[in-house]
C-alpha cells in the first residue's frame, strides 16, 4: 500500500459522533483556558510577592509556584490535545469514548494535585526532583508528596490511553508510523505526495515522543514513591533527574508540536491556499522526533558527573532543536499568507502572533543552552524568561486562535469586536513585557524560585506584576469570549 493511496480519504463519522466530538473538544479548551487563567492569577500573585506588594508566607509561595508549574503544563497538555485531536480525527478514526476518558482521568488527577498542594502543603515544585519530595523538613507530609506523584502517574496513564488510540488509528489508516511521518516519501521510495496531511505528521511525532516520555515517567514516578516509603532505597539521584527531565521536557515541548496543527489547518482555510507537504517538511519533522528527546540534558549542564558526551549532544542539539519545524512552519505560514488577500481576524492574528512568539522565544532558549552562558544563567530568571516567552506568545496563541476559529469569528468577513482587539493587544503587550522582565532579571543575575527578593531586585518584580496584570486582562477577554460564544457555536465550515 503506497501512502498516496490513503490520502484524501477523510473519515466518515455519524452525525451524533460529530456532535459529541465537538462538545468534547470544547470541554478540553474551556477547561484548559480556565486553568490557565487561574494559573496566571497565581503567577501574578507570585510576582506581586516578589515585588513586596503582597505578603504571604514562604510556604504558600512555594505551594503557589508548584500549582502554577504543574497547572500550566497540565492545561497546555489538555488544551493542545483538544486541538490535535480535533484535526487528527479527520484523517484517522479516533474514539470519542477514549477522548472523554482521558479528560475525566485528567480532572481526577487535578483534584488530587490540588489536594496534595493546598491540603497536604506539598511545595516541592512540579519537577518533584528527587530527593526533595521526601525531604521536606516537616513542611509537607510524605503522604502529600506521594499523592502529588501518584496524580502525575494517573494523568500520564490517561494520556497514554489517548496516544494508544491515536496510534491504533494511525496504523489502521497508514500502515506504520514511518509512513504516517512520510519517511518513504522523504527517502524517495515513493513519490512525494504534497497532499499528505501535515496534521498526521505532527500527530505521529507527538504520539511517539510522548509515549516514550510517559514510559520514562511511569518508571521514575514509582521509584520516587518507593523511596518515599522506603527511605533506605536511594536511587541514583542523577539517573532520577535524567528521567524526570526527559519526561517533563518532552511533555511540555510536545504541546507546541500538537498545537501547531492549528496553523497548518486554519491558515489554509482563511487564505484559500492549501498547506503542501514536501521533503523538507518531512525531514524537519523526522529530525524533531529525535531532537525533542535528546536535548533534555540542557537541564543538567551544571551536573558535572554527567557523561561529557551527553552534555555535548544536549548542547549541540539544543541549538537546532525546534529550528527545523519552526523554519518550515514559519516559512510555510508566510508563503501562505503573502499576497493572499487574507482577512485579518482575531483568529489569524493570534496564529500569526504564535509564529513570531515561537521564533523569537527560541533565541533566549538557545543562548541558555550553551554551556558557557548556562554557567552564568543557570537557575536565574533567564530560564522562566525564555519559556514564558514561547509559551505565552507561541503556544497559547495557537490554542486561542483555534478557540476563536471555533466560535466562528471572522467567518462572514465580520470585523473583530473592540473587546477582542483590546484583549489581543493587552495580551500581546503584557506577555511580551512579562517575558522581557524575566529575561532582564536573569541578565541581572536574579535567581529563580526565590520567594523573597532582595531590595535591589524588587523593581523588576514590580514591573513584572504590572505586565502580568495586562496578560490577565487579555486572558479575561479570551476566557469570556470562550465561555459565552463557544458552547453554542456550530461546527465551522
Amino acid at each position, binding site marked *: 500500500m503506497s501512502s498516496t493511496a490513503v490520502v484524501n480519504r477523510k473519515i466518515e463519522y455519524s452525525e451524533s459522533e460529530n456532535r459529541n466530538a465537538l462538545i468534547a473538544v470544547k470541554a478540553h479548551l474551556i477547561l484548559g483556558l480556565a486553568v490557565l487563567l487561574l494559573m496566571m492569577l497565581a503567577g501574578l500573585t507570585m510576582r506581586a510577592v516578589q515585588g513586596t506588594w503582597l505578603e504571604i508566607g514562604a510556604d504558600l509561595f512555594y505551594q503557589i509556584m508548584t500549582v502554577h508549574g504543574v497547572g500550566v503544563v497540565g492545561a497546555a497538555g489538555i488544551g493542545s490535545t483538544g486541538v490535535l485531536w480535533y484535526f487528527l480525527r479527520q484523517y484517522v478514526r479516533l474514539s470519542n469514548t477514549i477522548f472523554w476518558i482521558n479528560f475525566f482521568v485528567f480532572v481526577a488527577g487535578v483534584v488530587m494535585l490540588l489536594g496534595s498542594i493546598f491540603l497536604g502543603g506539598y511545595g516541592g515544585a512540579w519537577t518533584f526532583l528527587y530527593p526533595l519530595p521526601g525531604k521536606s523538613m516537616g513542611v509537607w507530609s510524605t503522604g502529600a508528596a506521594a499523592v502529588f506523584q501518584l496524580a502525575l502517574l494517573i494523568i500520564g496513564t490517561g494520556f*497514554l490511553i489517548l496516544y494508544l488510540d491515536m*496510534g*491504533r488509528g494511525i496504523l489502521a489508516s497508514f500502515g*506504520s*508510523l514511518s509512513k504516517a511521518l512520510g519517511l518513504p516519501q522523504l527517502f524517495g521510495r515513493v513519490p512525494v505526495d504534497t497532499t499528505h496531511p501535515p496534521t498526521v505528521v505532527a500527530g505521529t511525532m507527538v504520539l511517539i515522543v510522548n509515549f516514550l516520555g510517559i*514510559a520514562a515517567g*511511569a518508571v521514575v514516578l514509582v*521509584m520516587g514513591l518507593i523511596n518515599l516509603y522506603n527511605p533506605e*532505597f536511594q536511587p541514583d539521584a542523577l539517573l532520577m533527574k535524567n528521567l524526570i527531565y526527559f519526561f517533563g521536557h518532552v511533555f511540555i515541548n510536545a504541546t507546541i508540536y500538537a498545537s501547531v496543527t492549528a496553523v497548518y489547518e486554519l491558515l489554509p482555510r482563511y487564505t484559500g491556499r492549501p498547506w503542501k507537504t514536501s521533503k523538507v517538511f518531512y525531514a524537519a519533522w523526522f529530525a524533531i522526533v529525535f531532537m525533542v528527546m535528546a536535548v533534555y540534558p540542557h537541564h543538567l549542564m551544571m551536573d558535572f558527573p554527567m557523561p561529557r558526551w551527553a552534555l555535548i549532544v544536549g548542547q549541540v542539539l539544543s541549538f537546532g532543536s525546534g529550528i527545523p519545524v519552526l523554519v518550515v512552519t514559519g516559512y510555510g505560514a508566510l508563503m501562505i499568507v503573502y499576497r493572499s488577500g487574507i482577512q485579518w481576524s482575531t483568529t489569524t492574528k493570534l496564529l500569526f502572533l504564535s509564529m513570531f512568539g515561537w521564533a523569537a522565544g527560541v533565541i533566549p532558549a538557545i543562548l541558555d543552552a550553551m554551556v558557557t552562558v548556562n554557567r552564568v544563567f543557570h537557575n536565574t530568571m533567564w530560564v522562566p524568561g525564555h519559556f514564558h516567552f514561547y509559551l505565552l506568545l507561541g503556544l497559547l496563541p495557537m490554542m486561542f486562535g483555534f478557540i476563536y476559529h471555533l466560535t466562528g469569528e471572522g467567518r462572514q468577513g465580520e470585523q473583530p469586536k473592540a473587546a477582542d482587539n483590546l484583549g489581543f493587544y493587552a495580551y500581546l503587550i503584557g506577555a511580551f513585557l512579562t517575558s522581557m522582565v524575566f529575561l532582564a532579571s536573569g541578565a541581572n543575575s536574579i535567581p529563580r524560585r526565590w520567594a523573597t527578593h532582595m531590595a535591589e531586585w524588587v523593581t523588576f518584580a514590580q514591573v513584572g506584576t504590572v505586565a502580568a496584570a495586562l496578560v490577565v486582562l487579555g486572558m479575561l477577554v479570551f476566557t469570556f469570549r470562550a465561555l459565552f460564544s463557544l458552547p453554542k457555536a456550530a461546527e465551522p465550515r
Partner: protein
Amino acid sequence: MFNKIKREWLLLAAFVALALPPLRQFLEQSMVTHMLVQIPILAIIGWMIGKSLPANWKNKIASWNQWGITGMALAIVIMTYWMLPRALDAAISEWYFELIKFITIFIMGMSLSLSWPLLHPIAQGVFKLEFWATFMRLGWLYLDLPDRLCANYLLSDQRILGQLLLLGGSAWAIAWVFRIMFGTKIINT
C-alpha cells in the same frame, strides 16, 4: 485430535517435572532461575492449557469474564503477590506455600490466556507498558537496594537478576520501537 491430547499430556508432564525435587531444587537454587525460568514456565504451561480448554468450558468462563476484566484482576493479584520477596522466601521454606505457588502461578497463566484476547486493544497497550515498566522498576530496585530482599538468596544473585531484568526490558523496548516505527516484527509482543 491425537496431536491435541499429546500436547496436553506433554504440558502436564512438564508441570510434574518442574514440581519434582531434582528440577525444582535446581531452579530454586538461584533467584535468577527461580524468577526468570521456573515461574515463567509455570505461567506458560497455564497459558497453553488455557488455550486448549474445550470450547464449551471457555464459553462458560467467558460469561464470568466480561472484557477479560475478572481474569486480568485475578492474574494481577497473583502476580503482585509473588513479586513480594517474602512470598518467594516462604515458598522455599514451607511446602504448602510452594504448593500454593505452583497452583496459583498456573492459574495466573490460564486466566491470562483466557482474558488477554478479550481485552480491549487499548487496555492491552496499557498493560504492556505497565508490565514493561515493572520490569524496569524491579530491575532498578534489585540493583540499588543496599540489602538482600530474600533471606534465601545472595545479594549477588539479586544484582544479577536486576541486570537481567533491565536488559530484558531494554530488548523488549527496542523490539517495540522497530515494530511500531517500521512495522517489522522481531518477536511477537
